[in-house]
């Protein structure tokens, strides 16, 4: 699955599903390494790097932040898997569902979407509370929040809340040379 060292630049995507964007902030913390990265990759899809709205074809590497919590997340996850050689589960929300997954504790996990909406929009609301309903505009929540690898096959896991910039760099650098990073030890693996 690891792309061979290319003559042309690698095509890199970063994706933001159900997460707080902290992993992307950590990605931006790469600071001057971003210049080195820009020499070796084309950022073809990213909430912090491009204004592209449609996930492109023939992506080499995708860093995917966030759990899969709504129908938009699910659709994008399935799409990016088809169009990407190497998918990285980027941060604890993608790896474990983490904080977005806490709503799975509601309603015995059967339909936590309904339970969390009722809690937020009805029980805690004043007299005018109402459930959001805008088909096609506001994506519907899935009954359960899932980690990325329960929806699509994942090639590499980068835990952390967020993964530090160093951890991201240590994972990306070997990939740019067509090698797999060594995912061992506290520097690369720690949750939280």
């Amino acid at each position: 699955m690891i792309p061979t060292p290319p003559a042309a630049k690698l095509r890199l995507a970063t994706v933001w599903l159900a997460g707080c964007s902290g992993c992307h902030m950590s990605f931006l913390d790469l600071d001057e390494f971003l210049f080195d990265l820009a020499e070796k990759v084309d950022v073809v899809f990213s909430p912090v790097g491009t204004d592209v709205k449609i996930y492109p074809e023939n992506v080499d590497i995708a860093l995917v932040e966030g759990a899969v919590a709504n129908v938009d997340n699910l659709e994008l996850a399935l799409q990016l898997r088809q169009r990407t050689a190497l998918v990285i589960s980027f941060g604890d929300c993608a790896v474990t569902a983490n904080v977005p997954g806490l709503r799975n504790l509601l309603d015995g996990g059967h339909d936590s979407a309904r339970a969390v909406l009722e809690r937020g929009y009805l029980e805690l609301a004043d007299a005018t509370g109402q459930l959001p309903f805008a088909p096609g505009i506001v994506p519907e929540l899935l009954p359960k929040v899932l980690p990325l690898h329960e929806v699509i096959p994942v090639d590499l896991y980068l835990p952390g809340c967020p993964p530090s910039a160093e951890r991201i760099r240590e994972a990306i650098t070997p990939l740019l040379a067509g090698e797999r990073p060594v995912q061992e030890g506290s520097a690369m693996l720690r949750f939280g």
Partner: protein
Amino acid sequence: MSVVTLTVNGQDVAVPAGASLLEATRAAEANVPTLCHLEGLTPVSACRLCLVEVEGSSKLLPACSTAAAEGMVVHTHTPRLREYRRMTVELIFAEGNHVCAVCVANTHCELQDMAVTVGMDHSRFPYQYPQRLVDATHPQFTLDHNRCILCTRCVRVCDEIEGAHVWDIGSRGGQCHIVAGLDEPWGQVQACTSCGKCVDVCPTGALFRNSDTTAEKQPNTTLPALLRTAREQRRWHNQ
């Protein structure tokens, strides 16, 4: 003092008679991981992380509660054991509600450390999201069952060191949980001396001081061994 000699990962070691296999593996610097074990407390083999292979035995044996015997040939890090250990840690994560990012024990958690030790980068088992309660009835401490891994360190330290025996395990199987007193709210258990030893030895964020918020818990796991040495050998740590 009589001594038994055995082989750990091809290395000959000698330990005092009556020593555990865990002590023998440590004499060989084999770094067998443990979660429920704590120096100064009786071993219970609850976590199963210290399982080792002993030649001639068809079963894997918990090193903490198996006596070292003359001539044993022990293997501590075979591919099978490594795989089982990682699987065990994944199952511990999956069966509770462990969310490191928002846990009092973040950065000081033995379960979080253990995930690194066994190379767990994700859980292959779906998280179960069990419905568990939080007991915040004690004026100083809180018990969050969501983070409990049933290591029983709290049960043992309260019984064996403090002598109050506030804690026990209630129910069975997946319903197992720590109970205070006769399954009462912790704050109503008169036997509790509020010494805090259970909080100090808890490996995760299950027991914590009320003043601790995310990543603020500071465990003290050396206490039981210190107190036991002091009482039984009249020897304090700094003497």
